[in-house]
């Protein structure tokens, strides 16, 4: 009897997690008001900031959606002027991961021209989600 209950619980749990992640993956959220946004420097991310925006992807070895995310961001960066993308190994930058409260890979941060983190998402995003996040990052006053 216990076995059947656990079986039903596992089925319901798996369905709930699948739906939650489908909703969450690639969903860009704005964490802070413009004044207390975290700011990243070219030194911290290892490349010069983009003229208009920078996409920072945190990746790890045990991460299957990281490759698809990297390909998508690289493609977006070549098509949108003034935007660059950089990939950071989460395990080699654990302090930064803790400071930015990153829990999953991939996590994508979108920085504005000054390096302020305007929005972030975890999981593999869709192209239109990335383009929408970039549009908000380069828009002044957002």
């Amino acid at each position: 009897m216990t076995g059947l209950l656990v079986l039903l619980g596992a089925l319901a749990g798996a369905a709930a997690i699948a739906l939650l992640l489908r909703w969450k993956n690639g969903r860009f959220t704005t964490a802070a008001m413009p004044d207390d946004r975290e700011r990243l420097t070219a030194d911290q991310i290892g490349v010069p900031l983009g003229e208009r925006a920078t996409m920072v992807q945190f990746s790890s070895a045990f991460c299957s959606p990281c490759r698809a995310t990297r390909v998508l961001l690289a493609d977006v960066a070549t098509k949108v002027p003034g935007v660059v993308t950089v990939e950071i190994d989460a395990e080699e930058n654990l302090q930064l991961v803790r400071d930015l409260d990153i829990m999953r890979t991939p996590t994508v941060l979108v920085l504005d021209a000054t390096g302020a983190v305007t929005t972030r998402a975890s999981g593999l995003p869709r192209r239109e989600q990335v383009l929408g996040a970039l549009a908000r990052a380069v828009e002044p006053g957002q």
Partner: protein
Amino acid sequence: MSQPTQVDPRGLRVVAGITAAVLAAVLAIPSEPVRIALLAVQVAVFAIAAFVGLTASPYAKFHAAVVRPRLGPPAELEDSRPPRFAQLVGLTFTAVALVALLTGATTAALVATGLALVAALLNAAVGLCLGCELYLVLRRFTPVGT
């Protein structure tokens, strides 16, 4: 265990599907000898996949011999490190379940099996690697300066 070899992602889904079926049978069949036998088989399969290699797993051999010939060559390959890590996580949960069952802690054994089943179902149905999702969370607890 970190050589970046490439594997057929459809094979991973087939392996996860067989794993899910075995674990569901452990929960559904209320006979202790059957449960012990099924869990022991699953522990052995996870151990082979985690320590020898994904393609050495009997389930993967079944995919290679029976399923893949009907599907044709894969359109793309996937890094083997995340799924191999997932097999290690599965090994941990099923080993705990097997030990619990052998020591008479049946409820604990069924719960551990249920958790492994959730991971296998997600892997088979949507290709999600639950162990990988939790990897960074665990890594964050390791001391600063590593």
